[in-house]
């Protein structure tokens, strides 16, 4: 059975990994899996994998939600709430402090240099995360073609992206993307 200290242990662990999750929360997922599945046995490997698949398709703060489901499993609603706070609390404090610092030195010469160097790399990373996502999502040439079409239409027009998501859901639901 799950002991009384389990929720606390989970919350502390999540607060710790969220503080070191450089490059986004998915980078520490293997560590969370070890803690939750192997070390403590709170859920099975399959359950953990299902949570991840679901988090990928749900709108909103999906990694926070995924951790909330883990918390739910351990301690119901309070566990879900505690896990959510542990996941976004520490990084948020850091974002705010960093933004304040960055803002204070606005216009400094070194900041212009850093920005000039940093911005193109980050843009490259954004495009890369799109292609990485496409690689997981597109299991057929139809799906790949639809991803390319979405990118092209979005670039060429100012069409609301919701229409493309809707079209994707429709085509997928009717089985045209398999």
């Amino acid at each position, binding site marked *: 059975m799950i002991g009384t200290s389990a929720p606390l242990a989970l919350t502390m662990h999540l607060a710790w990994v969220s503080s070191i999750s450089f490059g986004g929360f998915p980078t520490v997922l293997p560590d969370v899996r070890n803690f939750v599945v192997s070390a403590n046995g709170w859920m099975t490997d399959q359950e953990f994998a299902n949570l991840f698949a*679901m988090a990928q398709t749900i709108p909103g703060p*999906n990694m926070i939600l995924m951790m909330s489901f883990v918390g739910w499993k351990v301690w119901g609603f309070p566990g879900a709430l505690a896990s959510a706070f542990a996941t976004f609390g520490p990084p948020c404090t*850091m974002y705010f402090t960093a933004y304040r610092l960055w803002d204070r030195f606005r216009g400094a010469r070194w900041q212009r240099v850093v920005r000039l160097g940093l*911005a193109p790399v980050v843009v*490259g990373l954004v495009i890369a995360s799109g292609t990485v996502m496409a690689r997981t*999502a597109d299991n057929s040439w139809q799906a790949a073609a639809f991803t390319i079409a979405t990118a092209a239409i979005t670039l060429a027009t100012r069409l609301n992206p919701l229409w493309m998501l809707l079209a994707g859901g429709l085509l*997928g639901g009717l089985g045209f993307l398999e």
Partner: protein
Amino acid sequence: MTDLDQTGKVEQALHLRTLFTAFLAISLCGVGGGSGIVWARRIAVENRGWVTDGEFSDIISLCQFMPGPNIIGIAVCVGAKMRGAIGAIAALCGFLVIPWTVGLSLGLLYLQYANLIALRNILGGIATSAAGLLIATGVRLLRPHRHRSASLLFAALAFSLITFGKLPLFAVLFSVVPLSILVAGIEAARAR
């Protein structure tokens, strides 16, 4: 809604409620890992004009270097820019509170029907277009850099290392970024 006067005192006029609803919309529209950035840019840059494309790139860069879900960093930074600490909290609450509640309820339902093929196909189709949207957003963000060859080179390098090299983001950030900043520094020193 907001009264923009000539002195640019947007901060004074902007309601916390406006920040809350804007980030609520961004949150609800962002399906699939990473695509929230698409909506953050569309709403905060294109529709509202709260931040310029340049500032938006700054914020993303800043967030990439921090731990945690980066998209939340956008909410915190844009909120902080518009209304300080209270603005950051308003944007964050907009981003989290309702989507989290809805997501938790939906998720508990979804886990029961996870094997429903039609549902899986619909979500798969949405992920397919979400990937395309993300690529388009990246290309849009690249446009301001298209006249500087070093920018294009480093963007291509970062892209390739992740896409083809399959290196972890962490490794790419801490190897390519110092190099890119070094080149920018040399350029700046020469221009002086």
